[in-house]
C-alpha cells in the first residue's frame, strides 16, 4: 500500500512552495522579496550549465534585475547528500549560463534586462521546526558542507524566511535575510503540484489548478497532450498524465468520451473529493495497476 503518509508528504511539499511564495506577499506593512526588487518567480526552471550534462533544477528561480536567486525548497526532515549535490550543482551555474537562461525566460517582458545579471546566488530553504528539531542536531557537518556553496535559510507559516547558516555573496542580501521576511499565517495557494510529479498531486492539481478554474465557463475537455501543455516539461510525463486521467475517470470526476476526458458542472463535489481520495490511497493502488500494468519477471 506504499507509505502511509504518502499524501501528507506531498501536501507538505506543496505547502513549502506556498510558504516560500508568501515571502512575496508578506504581512501588512512588512518587507517582502519585492522590497529587494525580486519579482516573477519561475517554478521548476531548467537552467543548462556549460560543461555539465545536467541542467540546474532549483525549485524556484527569481531575478531582481541584478541577482538571480536559485532556491531549493525542502519540506522533509532529512538533510540528504542529494541536497549537497543540488547546491553544488546550482553553484556551478555561470553568469553566461544565467544570462542565456534569463534571455530564454524572456525577463524583458517584466522590464528587466538579462544582460544586467551581476550575480548568481544559490540558496536552500528548510522548514523551521524541522530544521531546528530534526536536521540541525543530526546533520551539522553536512550543513557546513552545504553552506560552503549556499546559505541555508528556514521558513515557517506565520514566522519568517530568514538565514540560519552560511552567507550570500552580497552583504545586502545577508543583512536583509538576517532580519528576515515576516510570513503570513495563511499563505495563499499557488499550484498543487510536487516536483516529483507524483500522481496524487498531479490528480489534485489537474482538478484544482485547471478544471475548477475553467469549469465556470461550461464543461472542460482535456486530452493528455492538453494537460502536458499546462505544466513545464520538467514537471510531468505523458505516461503519468494518462494514468491520472484514467484515475479521475474511475472516481467519477470526469468521463472518457471520444479521445477526451470530459469534466462537467454538477460533478464539482467529485473534483473536491479527489484530494480526500488520494490522501487515503495512492492513485496506483486505487487503480490496482500492480496486477495489470507493467509485466514483471514473475509474469514470464
Amino acid at each position, binding site marked *: 500500500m506504499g507509505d502511509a503518509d504518502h499524501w501528507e508528504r506531498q501536501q507538505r511539499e506543496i505547502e513549502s512552495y506556498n510558504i516560500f511564495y508568501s515571502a*512575496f506577499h*508578506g504581512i501588512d506593512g512588512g518587507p517582502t522579496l519585492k522590497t529587494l526588487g525580486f519579482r516573477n518567480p*519561475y517554478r521548476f*526552471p531548467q537552467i543548462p550549465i556549460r560543461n555539465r550534462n545536467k541542467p540546474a533544477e532549483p525549485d524556484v528561480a527569481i531575478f531582481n534585475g541584478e541577482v538571480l536567486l536559485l532556491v531549493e525548497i525542502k519540506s522533509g526532515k532529512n538533510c540528504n547528500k542529494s541536497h549537497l549535490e543540488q547546491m553544488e550543482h546550482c553553484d556551478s551555474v555561470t553568469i553566461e549560463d544565467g544570462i542565456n537562461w534569463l534571455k530564454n525566460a524572456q525577463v524583458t517582458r517584466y522590464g528587466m534586462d538579462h544582460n544586467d545579471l551581476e550575480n548568481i546566488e544559490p540558496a536552500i530553504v528548510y522548514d523551521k521546526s524541522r530544521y531546528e528539531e530534526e536536521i540541525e542536531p543530526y546533520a551539522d557537518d553536512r550543513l557546513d558542507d552545504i553552506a560552503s556553496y549556499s546559505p541555508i535559510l528556514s521558513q515557517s507559516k506565520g514566522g519568517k524566511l530568514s538565514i540560519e547558516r552560511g552567507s550570500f555573496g552580497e552583504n545586502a542580501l545577508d543583512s536583509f535575510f538576517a532580519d528576515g521576511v515576516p510570513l503570513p499565517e495563511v499563505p495563499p495557494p499557488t499550484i498543487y503540484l510536487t516536483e516529483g510529479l507524483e500522481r496524487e498531486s498531479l490528480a489534485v492539481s489537474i482538478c484544482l489548478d485547471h478544471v475548477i478554474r475553467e469549469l465556470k465557463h461550461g464543461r472542460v475537455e482535456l486530452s493528455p497532450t492538453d494537460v502536458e501543455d499546462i*505544466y513545464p516539461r520538467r514537471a510531468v510525463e505523458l505516461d503519468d498524465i494518462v494514468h491520472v486521467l484514467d484515475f479521475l475517470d474511475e472516481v467519477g470526476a470526469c468521463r472518457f468520451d471520444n479521445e477526451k476526458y470530459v469534466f462537467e458542472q454538477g460533478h464539482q463535489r467529485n473534483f473536491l473529493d479527489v*484530494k480526500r481520495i488520494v490522501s487515503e490511497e495512492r492513485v496506483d493502488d486505487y487503480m490496482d495497476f500492480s496486477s495489470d500494468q507493467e509485466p514483471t519477471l514473475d509474469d514470464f
Partner: protein
Amino acid sequence: MDFNPETLKQEETSAILDRLISHVSKTEEELQEEAEEERKKTTDLKLFIARKEGFSLGTVEERLQSLATDESTHKYTRDFINEHGFTETRLNDEATLLEIRTPSYNREDYSILVDAGEYLRIFTTERRYWTKKTIERVIDYLPGLSRLYLSADDIHGIVNNLEEITETRISGFTSKYRSYDDNRRISIQFYGGDENDIENVKEEFDAKPTRVEFKQKNSPTDAVTGAITRNARVNIPGVRAGSEDLGAETLSSLAGHFEDRDHEHFDIPASPEMENTSGGLEIDGFTTVRLTDTDSENQVALADGGGLLHEDQTFLGALKEDILDKKQRYDFTNWGEDEFIVMDKNRSETFHLGIDNRDLIVNARPETTPITIKDFCQIILEEFRSTYGIQSRSTNLKE
C-alpha cells in the same frame, strides 16, 4: 413624483436626480409639522447600489424573461417574474426607467436605473414595503447584478466622509449583534441622544451599526437627513427647501464612497493564475481579504452570561458547522487542519479559506471574482460574527 417616461425622456441624469430630490424637499413649516405630528409627509427617496457583472442597461426585461423560462431557476423566482410585468424605458445614455407592475394589487412601482461605470445606482421613491416586494427582488434575482455589502466600520466611515461636504452628525443607529460563540442575538436601536450618548451606547455594547442615521447642516439648521445600511441602501427622508444641491451632493458622495469601499475590499487585482512559459511556471500574484476584529478588547463586555468560548477548536468547529456545512451554497475540502478550499456552488467558483487566531483569511484563487468574496463576507458578517471589519491586500508578482 411623476414617473411618466415621456416627461423624463431626453432629460439629463442630473435633472432627473433633481426631480427625485425635489420629491423629498420640504419647507420649514412642513419639516416642523413632520416633527410635531411624528408623521412623514412624503415617502423617502431611496438609493440602492449594485455591482455590475456583465449587466447593461436596457436588458432587464430580456434577462428576467430568460430567467423565467430557464428550468434551473428557483420556482420562487419564476413565480415572482410571472406574477409581475416589467417595462424598461431608455431615458438617456446612462439612465432607464423601470416600471414593475403588480396586477394583483393593481399597482405600478417605478425606479430609475443609473449607470455608474462598474456599478448601477437604483433610485426610487416607493415605500419600503413595496420596494422589498418589487425592485429589491429584481436586483437580487437579476443575473449580472449584485447588491453591495459593507462592514459596520465602513458605513460609519462613509457617514464621516460626509464632513467633506458639510458638517454632519450621527443622529442614531441600529445595531444587530451576532457571534458564533454567543447565543444571544442583540439588537440596539438608538435615537435622540447627542454624540456623546451615542458613543457611550456603542462602547457599552460593542455595538457595530447595521444602519447609521445622520443629519447634515447647512448653517444654521439641519438641511439633509438620511440613513445608510450595510447592504447599500440610502434613505433620504427630507431635504430642506433651498438645500437641494446639498442633497444631490450628499447622494453622490454616499454612492461614490460605497463604491470606493467595495472596490477597496473586494477587487481582485492579482490572483494565482498560472502560465507555463519557457522559464517555468509563472504565477500572477495574490489577493487576500481578511475579516478581522478591529476592537476585540470590547468583547469582554459581552462575556457575562454570553457563554464566550475560547478554544480555537470551537472557532474552527463553528465555522465548519454554522457556515461551511450548513449553507447549501458551499462545498469544501480540507487543506491541512485549518484551511479549506471552498466551492461556491451558485457561482461555480472556489476560494481558499484559512484562520489566523480569530480572523478569517480568504485567499483568491485564479477564478475567484469580487462578488463571490463579497457574498461570503456578507454571510460571515450576518451569520457568524457581525463585528468583523474587512481588509484587503494584493501582491502582483509581475510588477
